[in-house]
């Protein structure tokens, strides 16, 4: 049985994916119900439910055709589309306000949202994220690079909105 603190943690994970309070609650409620009904005995229940939440979210996105499917080729190419000297630290150092952060989250793809959650909330390193979501580290770096680029482009209309470190 999940205590209130764990439920809050799971809810925040759901929110990181959906960026919507109601959708996050629905997603969490459905996952908890399914977990209880299935009488699953997981070694790591929280991780297990998070996986359930993520898969359900992806399913819903597919149903609503919110996910742009990438070919295997594209995914493999991602490993090479970030500069060799790219430092994840540069993403962290971007200066934004809460509205901008929220807009950025909403503009991300579902898998990018999960990476953002692992990076910003869980505090995982790129290696840990790669291990957790079972993708090559290069793919993670590529996605982080793309997220940074997206953020800069999104707020390019007003260059003073986003301040890059050292600039």
């Amino acid at each position, binding site marked *: 049985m999940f205590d209130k603190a764990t439920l809050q943690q799971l809810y925040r994970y759901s929110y990181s994916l959906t960026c919507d309070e109601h959708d996050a609650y629905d997603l969490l*409620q459905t996952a*908890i119900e399914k977990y209880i009904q299935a009488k699953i005995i997981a070694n790591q229940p929280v991780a297990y439910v998070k996986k359930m939440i993520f898969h359900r979210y992806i399913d819903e996105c597919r149903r609503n055709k919110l996910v742009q499917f990438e070919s295997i080729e594209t995914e493999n190419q991602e490993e090479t589309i970030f500069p060799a000297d790219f430092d994840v630290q540069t993403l962290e150092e971007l*200066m934004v306000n809460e509205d901008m952060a929220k807009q950025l989250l909403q503009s991300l793809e579902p898998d990018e949202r999960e990476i953002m959650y692992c990076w*910003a909330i869980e505090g995982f390193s790129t290696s840990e994220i790669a291990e957790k979501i079972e993708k090559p580290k290069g793919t993670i770096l590529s996605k982080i690079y793309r997220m940074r680029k997206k953020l800069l482009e999104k707020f390019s209309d007003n260059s003073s909105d986003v301040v890059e470190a050292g600039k």
Partner: protein
Amino acid sequence: MSKGNLKKVIREHVEKQALSESQLESLMQIQNPNSETEKQAAKKQFRWIAIAAVFVVAFANVFYFSMSPELTLDQRIGSEVAKNHINLKPLEIETSSMQAIRGFLTELDFMPMESALLAGSSKRLIGGRYCSIQGITAAQLRLKDDQSGQVQSLYQTVYDKKVFSGLPQLEENKKPVTVYSKGLAVDIWVEKGILFALTKENKQ
């Protein structure tokens, strides 16, 4: 709106999100096996179990009674004799003479007789009437023990091998078989082609 580094701002934004107390309670209730939903489910499950149990018991009864052997011959005789004795219907002839009994119960297919087992006992014949054992016409003789005052019934009918096979025969040095029914002991034996059944007070 103040700015901060992306990681910090996103973390703070996400961490601000929280389930309301009612949402938390609802999720806790989902997990609680004693929640109303679960109780209702358990009730429903119990109802089905109860229905199933009724069917199982009914089936078991049918199975048991269909498969269990019928009462043995001596048990059937004992039961019938005990029942008749308890009813203690009025005598059709009151006499202490076996000869008088024979003269009165003329419709019998046999001649009522005294048993060697009762010879010299304190039991005294006081009368008789017609009856039947296992559908065969029989004589119900009534005896009274002068010492104990106990009234006993002695049933006699013709020994039909097809119907009464397996009962102990005195001529074969067998002892009467005793069966118990309705709180009475009933001794059953075959003697000189006659089936005897004698009720006794159960001393067990």
